[in-house]
């Protein structure tokens, strides 16, 4: 029996490592450290000309809101856009857009082409607000409760089953 011990140990290790290699865990999806904390303070010029700047105050509306970082140059953003339209239309959730490193006319063109799900849109030209929110790439979507506290972060596009299985349950928990 003793002579099989090394074999068993190796077999267990192989299974462990193989399992970890094959499971498609994405370290970017670990919970953001911002969850449970008030959204970082910011003030961004509005995409709509002449409109008041988008600020942290816009997030404290007493009802849950979504903050979506997007860019016209971002391909996955196109893929999730339909779901943002559904969230704003069918589910009546206010979605706030932050155009990450995107010039105003390009961001505007993107929203004209695909439809505008955003109740308000801010321009984060140098990406500093994105960094304050711990954004590592677009798209990323944050769920904010009525008091302006971040409750959930969705990394990457909201496509496939993500809307129904991940985002909506989080949203319903707040409503």
């Amino acid at each position, binding site marked *: 029996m003793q002579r099989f011990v090394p074999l068993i140990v190796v077999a267990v290790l192989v299974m462990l490592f193989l399992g970890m290699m094959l499971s498609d865990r994405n370290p970017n999806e670990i919970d953001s450290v911002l969850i449970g904390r008030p959204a970082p303070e910011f003030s961004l010029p509005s995409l709509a000309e002449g409109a008041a700047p988008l600020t942290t105050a816009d997030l404290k509306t007493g009802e849950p809101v979504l903050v979506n970082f997007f860019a016209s140059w971002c391909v996955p953003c196109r893929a999730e856009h339909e779901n943002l339209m559904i969230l704003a239309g069918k589910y009546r959730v206010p979605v706030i857009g932050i155009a990450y490193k995107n010039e105003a006319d390009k961001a505007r063109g993107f929203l004209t082409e695909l439809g505008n799900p955003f109740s308000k849109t801010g321009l984060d030209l140098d*990406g500093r607000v994105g960094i304050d929110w711990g954004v*590592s790439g677009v798209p990323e979507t944050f769920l904010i409760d009525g008091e302006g506290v971040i409750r959930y972060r969705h990394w990457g596009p909201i496509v496939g089953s993500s809307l129904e299985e991940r985002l909506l349950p989080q949203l319903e928990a707040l409503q």
Partner: protein
Amino acid sequence: MIRYLVLVFSVFAFTLAVHAVAVDEKPLADPVQEARARALMKEFRCLVCQNQSIEDSNAELAQDLRMIVRERIALGDSSDNVRAYMVDRYGDWVLLRPPLKSSTYFLWGSPFLVVLIILLVVMRKRRSAAAVPQPLSDDETARLAQLLEDDT
């Protein structure tokens, strides 16, 4: 000939060294501060490429983060302040060297644990190998005597 080769190689070496520094960026004027900033950049994970530090990476985010590290240093932040700034936004994940805290005790302790287990196993083996053999029983002595007698 050798001189010529040395010249060629040093030109190569220098161009490589230049490439290692991102060309589009302005280092800090104070070399001490710049060295501190560069040392810090090596500690932070590029969140786009994941297994590169922001010092190594060409990703745009890494470039922005390098700029922030330099800014903080120039403003007089200590290295710990800069680390806190990054962890505040991106979590411990941004640190290439995980910090020692209650959730990472097992991570840091596991190599010692493995060494300990190996030591225990080796010690047990040695003890059993070194065990004194039992003296022969009466039956065995009789049988041995008989065998020896048969031989002669």
